[in-house]
């Protein structure tokens, strides 16, 4: 058996540095990552990277920062298993490996000039934040912007500071709901779907962007369709088990589609006839 160092391997990692770690909740931590030489990741909002800790493994993680942020990028990771536990043990200054960005992100060029409704529930805010901040940083290029946010309890809300900023902005309509309120909570209580009927929108020029737990999509899409938003203007980001990010390992397959290469962002018209998608 001969062994050869392989240049241009698709599995090569970029040795990167964690420059900031913040604990967000019991389960979620925020990481800011610097690529070698301060290179920019050059991603589209909605794309993901394969993060690697040698000796532990790799995991697909969404880029949470906007491409307008230069010099580093950000991500938020929930501790659920082997890789994510190991990542949670790392500190500022530690190294990790990065491959990517991978997949098709949100079609930002197409979104320009249109009204946008963002629907985020749970961890969905993490990838969506990349697009929201991109839109806010280029606010002039877009029409009306609404953000609908759902979380389990007020304590589960991620990016509280940024959310507070969004609520203050006059050029963003923001509403939020929690599954379970605490005594201090003054906002809505209930499912995220309950926020949609209250949004006034012009369906033909509105793009809706949904990211959340798998169970949520069907219900949110049904509400948006009731609002007459055309199917191809409803965008979702789907999560699947992923091992390679290269359209080979088969884990992320959704019928004939590969979530890692054809997605993770899909428009509803492309997946409504795909039985395994939603």
């Amino acid at each position, binding site marked *: 058996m001969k062994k050869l160092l392989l240049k241009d391997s698709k599995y090569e990692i970029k040795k990167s540095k964690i420059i900031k770690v913040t604990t967000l909740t019991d389960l979620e931590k925020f990481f800011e990552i610097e690529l070698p030489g301060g290179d920019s990741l050059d991603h589209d909002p909605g794309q993901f990277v394969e993060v690697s800790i040698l*000796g*532990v493994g790799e995991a697909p993680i969404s880029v949470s920062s906007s491409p307008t942020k230069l010099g580093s990028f950000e991500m938020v990771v929930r501790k659920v*298993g*082997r890789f994510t*536990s*190991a990542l949670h043990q790392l500190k500022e200054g530690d190294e990790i490996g990065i491959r990517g960005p991978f997949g098709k992100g949100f079609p930002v060029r197409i979104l320009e000039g249109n009204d946008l409704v963002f629907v985020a529930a749970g961890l969905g805010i993490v990838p969506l934040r990349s697009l929201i901040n991109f839109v806010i940083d280029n606010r002039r290029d877009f029409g009306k912007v609404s953000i609908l946010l759902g979380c389990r309890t007020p304590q589960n809300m991620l990016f509280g500071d940024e959310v507070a900023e969004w609520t203050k902005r006059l050029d963003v309509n923001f509403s939020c709901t929690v599954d379970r309120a605490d005594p201090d909570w003054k906002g809505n209580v209930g499912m995220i779907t309950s926020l949609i009927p209250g949004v006034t929108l012009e369906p033909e020029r509105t793009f809706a962007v949904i990211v959340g737990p798998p169970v949520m999509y069907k219900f949110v899409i049904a509400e948006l369709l009731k609002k007459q938003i055309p199917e191809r203007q409803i965008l979702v980001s789907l999560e699947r088990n992923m091992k390679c990010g290269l359209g080979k390992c088969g884990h992320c397959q959704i019928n004939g589609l590969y979530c890692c290469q054809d997605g993770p962002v899909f428009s509803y018209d492309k997946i409504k006839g795909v039985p395994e998608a939603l």
Partner: protein
Amino acid sequence: MTRTKPKVAFFDFACCEGCQLQVANMGELLLDVLGLIEVVEFREVMSEKGPEKIDVAVVEGSITDKHAIERIKKIRDRAKVLIAYGSCATIGGVNGMKNNFKLDDIRKEVYGDRFNYFDTVETKAVHQVVKVDYFVNGCPVYIPEFVKVLKAALQGIPYEVPDHAVCVECKLNENVCMYDRGVACMGPVTRAGCNSWCINNGNICYGCRGMVSNPNENGAMDIIKKYNIPMDMVINKMNMYNKCREIDKREQKKR
């Protein structure tokens, strides 16, 4: 960086001690592993009075009486990490067969007329009594897997026992299937992780690693019928290692 070696102690409960023999049989690998850890003598640990902590407790055997329950709770208190080691510890193992009989009958059987003086509780796997951080299934354990678990413990990350069939490894090893030899094999419903070593060595899989989380039990029964293999033989085989699963099932229902 010089690290102090983690202190590892072995404890045994009701079992055949076959698994500990496996460790002794490790040969060269054992030396390498010993380079990683400091093995503290079990008696030593228990005789020390102070609440001194051990880093890793490796527990063998199933929990079969009240005294054992107390003892395992103490071990848990002192161990940062607890590894359940071998089928008796992880799934109740052969000791679980006790649960097939009325408890009183067993005591009569074992202790004769004086059975009332001896208490015995339902046989339990270790995780049915205290929190277990790592499982090393198997009867006896498969040493390369134990080493894998040990590494994970030292890395501070979880180890998941594979949740697919032994057949997967068996096929990767390109064995001739036991069903093609006309013999029943528990491979299709047993958790992988042992590299199908029994089949590699010409034996059938007895299911010693416990069942996969979502076994198709009816399907497995159909197969066995199809191959004309006597039914009670199979049920015996399944019971041999999987009886304590019923306790897990019961707990799940309660939740």
